[in-house]
């Protein structure tokens, strides 16, 4: 008899290792997030299409490159001059695709369910930026990359959609098939932080001894 297949989180096998890392390194918390519905939206940024979509979503599309805004139960993320990603924690992907597709099709736009494309990893704590900077070329200091900004860029060898949720709080959307690599990169790179903690508290302890 055929085995029954159960849907598992792409990072299910890294959960324990990431939890151990978070417990071992003060100032760093890393964990896989629950999956969300995601819909890729294409519509002309200026004119009635963008306005209609904004009305349907209840919030204006972020026109500024590399920014995102909150929606009722998710995020609306700038991906390109005529492209956004809508995430929704409670929404049904097929339903969202149909409803929003109906709105934008009148303006030569498109809405595509891409929920299965990405999963997300959350990085928090005062060492989160330190860790990311070991594999990401962007200036991630809060002055240059404050809450509400995002970037599609590289972390290690993989492309990620990096969101700043707060000063020491990042969400990394990554392709599902690259999620294991990204988690392994985090685990591997964080060894450096275990060995030589360099956050201010640790340095203060060192100088006292």
């Amino acid at each position, binding site marked *: 008899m055929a085995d029954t297949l159960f849907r598992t989180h792409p990072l299910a096998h890294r959960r324990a290792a990431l939890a151990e890392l978070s417990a071992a390194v003060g100032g760093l918390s890393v964990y896989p997030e629950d999956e969300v519905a995601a819909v890729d939206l294409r519509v002309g940024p200026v004119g009635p299409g963008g306005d209609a979509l904004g009305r349907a979503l209840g919030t204006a599309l972020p026109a500024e*490159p590399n920014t995102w805004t909150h929606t009722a139960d998710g995020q609306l993320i700038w991906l*390109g*001059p005529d492209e956004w990603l809508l995430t929704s924690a409670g929404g049904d992907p097929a339903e969202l695709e149909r409803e929003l597709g109906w709105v934008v099709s009148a303006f030569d736009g498109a809405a595509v369910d891409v929920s299965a494309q990405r999963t997300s990893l959350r990085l928090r704590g005062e060492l989160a930026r330190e860790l990311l900077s070991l594999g990401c*070329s962007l200036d991630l200091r809060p002055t240059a990359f404050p809450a509400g900004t995002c970037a599609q*860029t*590289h972390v290690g060898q993989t492309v990620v959609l990096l969101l700043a949720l707060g000063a020491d709080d990042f969400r990394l959307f990554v392709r599902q098939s690259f999620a294991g690599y990204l988690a392994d990169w985090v685990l591997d790179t964080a060894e450096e932080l275990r060995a030589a903690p360099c956050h201010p508290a640790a340095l203060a302890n060192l100088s006292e001894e």
Partner: protein
Amino acid sequence: MQLIHCPWCGPREEVEFHYGGQAELAYPERPAELSDQDWAEYVFYRDNPKGPFAERWSHNAGCRRWFTAVRDTRTYRFLGTAKPGEPLPVTQQREARV
């Protein structure tokens, strides 16, 4: 590694980008009248100047949009970038065809 200025995303690392060949190639106005030689030149022949050269680049790892860049082929230095349809950021030298 140098930074390339994406017209939308701003300065990003060079590895995020993909090269797309010479820019500003106009499609033949009357394609039906082209000889094989003309077609070959339109499809395959490209300028190869020593100096500033207008090229198409794509921000592959980022916004995935195509844009125009003027790059100095002697130094590999980027002199400027522009969105499609915008005027070239810097004048380029075109090699005279013999």
